């Protein structure tokens, strides 16, 4: 096993230290280079999105660590129904009691899978949790005050998509698609209780592990979203709104790119009420919480790449078909 010996990195340390000193001395005087309107807007968007996600990621990581340290492995498998259909329904309802924001969900679900939750049930939870809960329903209802049928449609489509994908995964995926590092964790349990400061300290150490694991994907997602918000013009694309099917693809693409929280995307969607058909708005509101830059990166952290891509395809396809069908009813 290679060790990171301090002597090996000295050759790199010296120029790195030099660079850092240079930056620290030079940058504050040249700050105007950075301080222009675009950077300001980028910074405000970036920090805003990151701060908004931060409490949820911390909560998810904390919950996950608490589960790891205090709840024995078998407890969860006793609670989840064995047959697929009741298990999927159980997962859909979990979101109602556990309204976790999608950012905090991944570390928690990782832990749940390790504790015995079958993968297909976990996926249903990941997909339906951010949407099928009272907070999001209330927010959607408020944003579309004059169109309550849109709120119902959103909930209905989310449920249908999550259910369908859960079944498909149950039937088609036989080998565990979770990344290998998860499997190795069984050895880690022995070390848990030996940490200094006891179990409480180990909870925080593991929370920090989860935070750094998830955080890197979160930060990349936030950077991309902030970049899009700062440099991409939205209204020029309203011409696409006239397109019968193109508008659906556009709204789905927008939902993916914007990475909005599921409680606030309804309001953003409502501003498009006149330029885009209602079905495409439903697609926006269902795809966004299930799949966006932040989520996609975090799902890649959780699952093997091939499975993650398969999942993305399933989500996009089901949401697209589902929203087109629903628009007939709306």
């Amino acid at each position, binding site marked *: 096993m290679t060790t990171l010996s301090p002597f090996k990195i000295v050759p790199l340390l010296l120029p790195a230290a030099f660079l850092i000193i240079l930056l620290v001395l030079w940058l504050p005087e040249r700050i105007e280079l950075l301080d222009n309107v675009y950077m300001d807007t980028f910074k405000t968007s970036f920090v805003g999105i990151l701060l908004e996600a931060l409490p949820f990621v911390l909560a998810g990581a904390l919950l996950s660590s608490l589960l790891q340290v205090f709840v024995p492995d078998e407890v969860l498998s006793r609670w989840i129904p064995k047959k697929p259909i009741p298990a999927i329904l159980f997962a859909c309802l979990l979101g109602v009691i556990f309204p976790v924001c999608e950012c905090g969900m991944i570390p928690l679900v990782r832990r749940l899978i390790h504790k015995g939750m079958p993968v297909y049930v976990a996926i249903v939870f990941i997909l339906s949790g951010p949407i099928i809960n009272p907070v999001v329903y209330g927010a959607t209802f408020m944003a579309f005050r004059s169109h309550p049928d849109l709120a119902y449609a959103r909930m209905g489509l989310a449920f249908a998509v999550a259910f369908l994908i859960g079944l498909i995964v149950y039937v088609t995926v036989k080998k565990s698609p979770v990344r290998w590092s998860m499997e190795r964790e069984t050895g880690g349990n022995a070390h848990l209780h030996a940490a200094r400061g006891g179990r409480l300290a180990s909870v925080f*150490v593991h*929370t920090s592990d989860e935070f750094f694991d998830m955080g890197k994907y979160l930060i990349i997602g936030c950077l991309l979203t902030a970049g899009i918000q700062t440099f991409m013009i939205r209204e020029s694309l309203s011409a696409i709104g006239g397109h019968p099917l193109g508008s659906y693809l556009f709204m789905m693409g927008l939902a993916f790119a914007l990475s909005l929280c599921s409680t606030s995307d309804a309001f953003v969607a409502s501003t498009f009420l*006149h330029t885009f058909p209602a079905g495409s708005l439903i697609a926006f509101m269902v795809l966004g919480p299930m799949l966006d830059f932040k989520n996609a990166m975090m799902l890649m952290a959780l699952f093997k790449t091939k499975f993650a891509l398969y999942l993305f395809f399933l989500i996009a396809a089901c949401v697209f078909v589902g929203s087109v069908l629903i628009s007939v009813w709306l």
Partner: protein
Amino acid sequence: MNDSRSIRLHYLFRAAVLAAFALYILHLMQQDALHYYVAPALARWIRLCPVPLGLMALSLVIQALLGRSQVLCNCDHRLPAGFLKSTGLYGLFMLPLLLGFLLPDKALGSIAAAKKGISLTYSAMEPEKAIPGASTVPNKSITSAPTNRDTAVTFETTDPYAKEFAELAKLLYAQPVIPVYPAIYSETFGAIEMFKEQFEGKEIAVSGFVYRDQTVGTSGPFAVSRFLVQCCTADATPFGIMVDPQQKLTLPADSWVKVQGKLKVVSQGGKNLIEIEASQITPIAQPQTPYIYTSADSVAAWKALQKDAAKAK
């Protein structure tokens, strides 16, 4: 990579990053700049974050300094292997901190509004012609006979969800000059927009930042705008009312103004929009809270605000 020394180093770095995040949040709280980034409801949770961040940093420091070597294990390969990967990881986490500390805290302005596309109408309330199969949607604005302005102007709606706006509209109409309070800005806008024909000719006083279409110069028509924030800057939606300045004025974009004038209904791009024929435009300082947020009960808020305004007099 099981070397306990490198694990300790990693733990120390991580503790430093976590502590830096906690410090940044505390810094924002002390500068009272949190509201530039997130809505007040969410700010509450962010204020709590330094606690777990600090505890995490502390635990890591304890492990790094006091932990027994045989216990410090990287069996689940959570820690990055190699100098480059480590620098990459921690550099990524330093990026938001660097941006946060180095650049000033500013509210979103015209550039963001231009990119997001400013909303000159309160869309959720408009009569739906674009939605297919919307024949069941009730008509929301029943106008009174236009010739009888002196008899009671009715604000009626058959739509139960628009009742709050109808009630607010009644209260607003009774004012000689309609004040637009920041606390119920979007609801005031929505109420006026919904019954724009009835409000035509009324005096209104509203403040916001100057937003101009990129193609127009620094004089000419602009929109007096505010950003509506639900959750955080990602969903910030700019709302604006068109202003016809009636005179040649040079107003740089993003400067804050108070506009007073008469409401008019104009047609633009096939839609009816409200516009203010300005009689008075005064520059003001950017208010402490530049963004607006939705109000749970705009009518109650209006009554409370009116009471406060009367007391102040």
